[in-house]
């Protein structure tokens, strides 16, 4: 059993949340100040999915602080998981799948680190991990489900079953996962942290409720009035958000629905580095893209501006 009581203990998780200020006040800050809220050893849950709406700006700022002993969880883990492992920031990943996508093959870093015993890899089914976040978002220690029953995945985290008191059937009691921190990137927010997402929502709304501390970047900071004009588009309540940073292209070169497309060519260059030099390829990449640029603007400047404009044009075409 690798799940720890801290992950599913809803009473302790609630008391942590009760102590947090939930005031409708200014949440705007810098990437640096936001990232400083993550402590060594924290469980950090990452929003978006695979190469979509990944909070890359927050991950960039976090890795620059050279954190240690983190556990990262995400529904489908992309290369941010490789970064954290190779950077020595994380020693445990919790996810249902790791890679980038079909054209790039398996994650060689995942293989190499898991097979050599340097990385703990806790695997759940995609829905089970989603239900872990949702149980936490609902403030309960588990949710019943049929998924994962009968599979070897039941043993990985230490899943237990529960008997339905009405029907007598046995269900998977999917344990809650209350992360210490959630990192999210959304389309727009007001300065109080009320956040709106366009397109597929992934699991971000659940993450914002499940975590004790919520760090969020937004493509756009809009007025209070603008949020109030479309309150039915708000999916993250301001009182859940601890730090908000305005970061256009905050998940680039991953995609942001309707704003910019992903850059598969960049993924290929990244993966080629690993194919050629293994983990050293990641180290080189981190040096160039994470540690060298002193600001997020410097980071973005490493990408071709015409490519960014083109990614934006593709996104508009794909969503209209």
């Amino acid at each position, binding site marked *: 059993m690798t799940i720890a009581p801290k992950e599913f203990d809803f009473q302790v998780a609630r008391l942590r949340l009760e102590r947090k200020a939930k005031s409708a006040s200014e949440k705007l800050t810098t990437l640096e100040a936001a990232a400083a809220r993550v402590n060594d050893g924290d469980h950090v849950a990452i929003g978006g999915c695979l190469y979509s709406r990944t909070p890359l700006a927050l991950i960039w700022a976090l890795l620059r602080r050279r954190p240690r002993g983190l556990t990262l969880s995400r529904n489908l883990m992309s290369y941010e998981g490789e970064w954290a492992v190779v950077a020595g920031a994380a020693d445990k990943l919790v996810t249902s799948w790791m890679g980038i996508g079909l054209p790039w093959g398996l994650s060689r870093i995942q293989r190499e680190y898991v097979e050599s015993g340097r990385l703990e890899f806790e695997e759940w*089914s995609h*829905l089970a991990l989603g239900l872990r976040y949702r149980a936490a978002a609902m403030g309960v220690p588990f949710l019943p489900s049929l998924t994962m029953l009968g599979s070897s995945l039941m043993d990985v985290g230490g899943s237990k079953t529960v008997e339905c008191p009405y029907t007598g059937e046995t269900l998977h009691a999917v344990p809650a996962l209350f992360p210490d921190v959630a990192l999210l990137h959304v389309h727009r927010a007001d300065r109080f942290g009320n956040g709106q997402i366009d397109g597929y929502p*992934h699991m971000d709304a659940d993450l914002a409720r499940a975590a004790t501390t919520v760090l969020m970047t937004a493509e756009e900071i809009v007025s209070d009035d603008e949020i109030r004009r479309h309150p039915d588009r708000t999916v993250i309540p301001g009182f859940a958000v601890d730090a908000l940073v305005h970061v256009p292209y905050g998940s680039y070169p991953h995609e942001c629905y309707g704003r910019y497309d992903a850059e598969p060519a960049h993924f290929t260059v990244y993966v080629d580095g690993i194919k050629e030099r293994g983990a050293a390829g990641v180290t080189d990449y981190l040096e160039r893209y994470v540690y060298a640029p002193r600001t997020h603007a410097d980071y973005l400047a490493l990408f071709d501006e015409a490519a960014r404009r083109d990614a934006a044009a593709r996104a508009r075409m794909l969503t209209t």
Partner: protein
Amino acid sequence: MTCTANELLAVMGARALRDGITVFAGVGAPLMATALAQRTHAPTLTMMMEGGILGPSFKPGDLPISTNEMRAAYHAQMLPGISDAFLLAQRGFLDVGFIGGAQIDQYGNVNTSVIGGYDRPKVRLPGSGGANDIISLCREVMILTVHEKRRFSERVEFVTSPGYLSGGDSRRKSGLLFGGVSRIVTTLGVFDFEPESRRMRLTALHPGIAVADVQANTGFEVLVSADLATTEPPTDKELDILRMLDPKRQFIG
């Protein structure tokens, strides 16, 4: 026309989809199969993608490489999100699901996690993703895969996605009250599961393939149906549609 392995899988997968059903499909061959079925005999079929995307249209020549991106959501009807998409399957709304498989055993159990012990495996594979959920929650599941001996082994060491477990009623006894693998379509033929033992059974061969070819490429004894059939080869119309959808042959090979 001659066709590639993936074209064969997409065509045979498409033909197995009835009109008016709902299909949980991922990228690659399952997407091609579903999109083809919609454009031939199943115009009122509804597709769900793992990214929480319902009823997408696809832009020919610009198909998605992941189920969580704009190409997968192009002109979709609804974007319920990942967890809620799977919960619709748990409720019983999804008739057929597709999964792939790195390693499949004679009971349709699939391993996409580890070769060797879990904690310190010989080979670490990418993991379940939504495959475990699809095989656990959809009404029935179809597997599309290239037929290679290393993929079809007598038992999988790790059951990422449960087929019929150890056969008989063991799946149901494990608490999986619904669904199961109804069909495996490979590059050599089509399989179902013998109703009692729940062992894989060859029901049809693709043209030009012999039972011995199948046995030679399978790591366990192949059951053969009493009324073994031969599939009709892909038609020009089917292949034309696939090639119209994927002119750069990213997915059909």
